[in-house]
């Protein structure tokens, strides 16, 4: 057999090195993240019922559909199969109350994909997390519907439309503990997710399992959730109590609201956070501090969404400030 027998001159690919690559891809990363969110999303359907399922379907379909139409209109290659628009839809649905009217998830998805993602240039170029922009848009447009929470299960019938953080803000810590019976029951409900809130934020345990898997796979850095949750816990302990410094409840702060969902899934959105690990730590601490600031002093009971969006806006500055140490600058 000659060297030429299976070889056609001119058929060789000529390109710059390297010539081999690992088998990682954007689609693999995005679909893995989607899969790790699935348990918490399914829990919301089980717990909040059909409205949650409907919201999920609308958000995902509208996000993917919007991306498809925009890319067709712009004559760009359609990239909906990479799972990133699907992820935006999924995260948006998990970040809003399950019971909002159907047109809200639809419009939220349009804003998330159409404005937050594609006016910026599409995947990789958006400054803000699209799902959070979608949520912020809905919260600003329909503040009542967006803070009217689906009722909790039977034994808590009396306190329908308030999240634990809402009760804490308006009625105080003692009332919150009283609603859930005692402190252990409160923590248990928060950990398992049997409480009111945005559809996908409630089940801390399922979100943790998904998040830990992402850390294990190397898709997110553990520094981000640890620093963000740690900052929230520390500052809440320090300033969050009624009896002076160091009387706040850090555990409640860690388990409630959208902190676990936000710190594992939105503060780790690689496109909108700093690229170096050091920068990401700065980002996470900043997001944690802003969350506590909004929770304790702001008008809203929860601040994770705005905290992350605000930190998104300084990401380019952090990247300018925090660069890796170049080889050869120390001897």
């Amino acid at each position, binding site marked *: *057999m000659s*060297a030429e027998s299976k070889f056609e001159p001119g058929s060789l*690919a*000529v390109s710059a090195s390297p010539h081999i*690559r*690992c088998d*990682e891809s954007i689609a693999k990363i995005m679909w893995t993240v989607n899969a790790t969110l699935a348990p918490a999303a399914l829990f919301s359907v089980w717990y909040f019922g059909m409205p949650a399922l409907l919201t999920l379907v609308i958000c995902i379909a509208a996000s993917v559909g919007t991306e498809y139409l925009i890319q067709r209109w712009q004559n760009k290659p359609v990239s909906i199969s990479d799972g990133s628009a699907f992820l935006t839809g999924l995260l948006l649905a998990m970040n809003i109350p399950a019971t909002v009217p159907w047109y809200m998830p639809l419009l939220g998805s349009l804003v998330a994909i159409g404005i937050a993602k594609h006016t910026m240039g599409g995947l990789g170029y958006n400054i803000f997390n699209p799902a959070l922009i979608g949520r912020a848009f809905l919260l600003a447009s329909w503040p009542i519907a967006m803070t009217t929470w689906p009722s909790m299960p039977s034994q808590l019938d009396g306190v329908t439309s308030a999240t634990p953080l809402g009760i804490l803000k308006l009625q105080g810590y003692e009332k919150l503990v009283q609603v859930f019976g005692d402190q252990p029951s409160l923590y248990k409900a928060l950990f398992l997710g049997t409480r009111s809130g945005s559809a996908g934020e409630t089940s801390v345990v399922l979100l943790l399992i998904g998040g830990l898997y992402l850390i294990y796979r190397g898709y997110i850095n553990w520094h981000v959730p640890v620093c963000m949750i740690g900052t929230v816990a520390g500052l809440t302990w320090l300033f969050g109590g009624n009896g002076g410094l160091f009387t706040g409840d850090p555990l409640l702060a860690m388990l409630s609201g959208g902190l676990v969902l936000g710190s594992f899934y939105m503060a780790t959105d690689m496109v909108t956070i700093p*690229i170096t690990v050091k920068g990401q730590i700065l980002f996470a601490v900043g997001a944690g501090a802003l969350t506590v600031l909004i929770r304790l002093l702001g008008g809203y009971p929860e601040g994770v969404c705005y905290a992350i969006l605000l930190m998104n806006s300084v990401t380019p500055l952090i990247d300018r400030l925090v660069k890796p140490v170049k*080889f050869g600058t120390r001897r």
Partner: protein
Amino acid sequence: MAKSFRGGVHPNDRKAYTASKHIQSAPVPSRVIIPTRQHIGAPCTPVVQAGDLVKKGQIIAEAQAFVSAPVHASISGKVLEISEYPHPVFGTCPAIVIEGDGQDEWQEGLPLSRNWQDFDRSELKEFVRQAGIVGMGGATFPTHVKMAPPAEKQIDMLILNGAECEPFLTADHRVMLERAQDVMTGTQIAMKILGVTQGFIGIEENKPDAIAAMRKAAEGTAIQVVALKTKYPQGAEKTLIKVIADREVPSGGLPMDVGIVVQNVGTAVAIADAVQNGIPLIERVTTVTGGAIAEPQNLSLRVGATFSQAIECCGGFREAPVKIIMGGPMMGLAQRTLDTPIIKGTSGILALSAADVNVGPERPCIRCGRCVETCPMGLVPSMLSLLGERSRYQEAKEEFNLLDCVECGSCVYVCPAKRNIVQYIKLSKAQNAAQAVKK
């Protein structure tokens, strides 16, 4: 505990194709194409004409400049022509074509027999220069020039590079196993030329047999064999020095700035051959491998034999190759034709199948940060690729340390968006160089 460095990647090393195969001498080619430029530096001038009869080992192109190395005939026969031929590095280059006479006759007096200990430093260096030796790891910098650092650079250490961190390649591995004594002799000669007493040989842990063989050969000498962690690019000069000597070559500097000279193990053998036997660099060990090669081999090939001759020695192709590479898959150069000749720096010939290369369409950077984590030089490759893509070459150089990139390709290997980061970096470097010439 093997030593290591910051960053780097762990590609599947694919060395099993050839790691256990003995070096085979390829048949003497009936015709060779010998480029007049096989090194970094000034081209050589031919000293023969079409029609001349030449012997193996005879100088056929002479170095005029200081940074240059002479070129020798690799077979005996008749000079057919001197004209432009494909070149694995420079695209095309004037080459001397020799039609073999089938005798494979040495130039008179070769090979001879000398004891290196009988000669002083400058005599030894002259033997190396006359033999046309260049860095055989692939960089092809003339060895005698590397051995003559400017007087103000105090050299105190020689490091021999046996890391062979590129996937697929096993040529250095086999040389260390089969020619351990010559590697050691070449190292000792190089140390004498440099006047240094510290000598190290760095070998990746995935070659335990080579480590053992070299340790045995090093017994009774001052040379230490260091086991290195298996991680690409362990064999890049700067990371190798960092790991073995814990010195950082300054940004924009050379190893000699930290008192070190690095040589490849193949180069050490060439030095031993040149000094002890007067044999010039006309033959080298090359790994011919890849998913598209029928029977991958470690071949001893004449300079000037073509890629297609080498591939034929390995049974031809198993399937149609998508890429032909000179060197390793991480830093090697893609070739457009099989008529390309083997040169002094050809450490490997790879024929990669479609399954080997895994190219996908390039997607936008999603800022995942993997490139930043893997960059052994502490750069931000994602920004360099974006700036290159947008023709912002000067910004890449001034604000993102473009010129510190060693083009090891780790960033491209890990990139989930399949971005051609090194291509943008090469483009940006070339554009900056062109800009500098204009000014």
